[in-house]
């Protein structure tokens, strides 16, 4: 029997069941411990970045190469016919899928990956479509949480910073709600978690509260998930005020639980003080590294009926 992700499009985290998520996490764990070279033997992956995203692209391309596959593609569509000559994404997807065994794509418009998947003859993996979805970020976050806590079940997770516009935190909160986690949302009122997400959590019976006191929340938490406060959304005095309230400083970590880890999707600007990096709680660089394992796991599962490690 083939694995449930074999030849599947990976477009939105909500398309994945609990079993699917656990399969990816489990496979990522094995790949981190062992060696998956050869799992993409003779496979060609098209890495199509219609807008630049160096971090995501390098992570995917490293994942392909570490499994012994090869990569074709582009890192910015302004230099390709798709961008320059006005080719539709639909036509690009038909064409590219005739060259490759899978397409990894990032695109500035919402819905682009789903649309491409309707025209592509090979699986499409969404590496970000505008402000909509970025499922591999959520997968690497889940893998990192499972790795540091030994479980996803019943954890207490604080989300800090821009919770209004951050699709990363929306997707992660929704995924963790499958595991009965409890949330603390720490954000300025202007950037608080949107109502539609909160309603969704209410419907699932998930416990959460909103707070503006980061230091007080830390001792309760298993995971503190930091995000970037975008300076351009505020005037200077406002920003200073928020920054002092929602910047993680090393002295706030006294009293944290031993198992607590600080995560951040990176790039960090100044919402985590550099001194935090030297504490045992900092896990954001390891989290970025885990991105390669999570993407390796996904590619291996999508392109192999069976993955034995």
């Amino acid at each position, binding site marked *: 029997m083939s694995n449930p992700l074999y030849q599947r499009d990976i477009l939105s985290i909500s398309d994945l069941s609990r079993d699917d998520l656990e399969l990816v996490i489990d496979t990522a764990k094995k790949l981190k411990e062992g060696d998956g070279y050869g799992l993409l033997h003779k496979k060609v992956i098209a890495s199509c970045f219609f807008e630049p995203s160096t971090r995501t692209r390098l992570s995917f391309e490293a994942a392909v190469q570490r499994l012994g596959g090869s990569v074709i593609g582009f890192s910015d569509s302004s230099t390709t016919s798709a961008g320059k000559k006005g080719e539709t994404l*639909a036509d690009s997807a038909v064409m590219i899928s005739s060259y490759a065994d899978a397409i990894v794509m990032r695109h500035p418009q919402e*819905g682009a990956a789903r649309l491409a998947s*309707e025209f592509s003859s090979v699986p499409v993996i969404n590496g970000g479509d*505008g*402000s*909509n979805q970025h499922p591999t970020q959520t997968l690497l976050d889940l893998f990192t949480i499972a790795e540091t806590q030994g479980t996803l079940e019943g954890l207490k997770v604080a989300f800090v910073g821009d919770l209004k516009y951050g699709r990363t935190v929306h997707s992660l909160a929704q995924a963790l709600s499958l595991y009965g986690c409890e949330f603390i949302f720490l954000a300025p009122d202007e950037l608080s978690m949107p109502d539609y997400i909160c309603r969704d959590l209410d419907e699932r019976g998930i416990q959460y509260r909103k707070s503006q006191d980061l230091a007080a929340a830390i001792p309760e938490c298993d995971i503190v998930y930091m995000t970037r406060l975008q300076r351009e959304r505020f005037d200077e005095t406002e920003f200073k005020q928020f920054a002092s309230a929602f910047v993680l400083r090393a002295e706030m970590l006294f009293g944290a639980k031993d198992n607590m880890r600080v995560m951040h999707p990176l790039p960090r600007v100044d919402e985590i003080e550099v001194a935090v990096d030297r504490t045992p709680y900092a896990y954001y660089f390891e989290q970025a590294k885990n991105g390669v394992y999570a993407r390796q796991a996904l590619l291996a599962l999508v392109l192999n009926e069976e993955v034995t490690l």
Partner: protein
Amino acid sequence: MSNKTLSIQAIEFGTVIDHIEAGKGAEILKLLGEYIEGVPVTVGFNLHTQSGRLKDLIKLEGVILSEDVADGVSLLSPGASLNIIEDFKVAQKRSLGIASQITGTFDCLNSNCVSHTEPVVSRFSVQADEGDIKLRCHYCEKSFSRDLVAV
């Protein structure tokens, strides 16, 4: 000739959209748009129903409304009914309810949605949300209230 016979004057073959919520008839006509180009259309606004309420009514001669368009109409006036007329008789009558999927009749409200620039028809799933009816775009996954949908 009484007022009543005037407003429901018989057609030989076609579609009667009846029991449209009063005031929604104009929006539905706009939705029908090019679909009814060259088609004889009779319209009644603010007609009295037997129960004393007001309704709008639209008769299309010579066309049977497609499912997709009927779904669009259902979203604007869920209480409307669709009568297919053959040989001056009602051959089929159904109340519309609210379709679970709407295809091709409305544009996505998200201006950055890929459906605007690609060769595809718009697709929405319809969700009831605390008395409001919401459309969720198949592509960009954004949801918005039915009331915001421009016809």
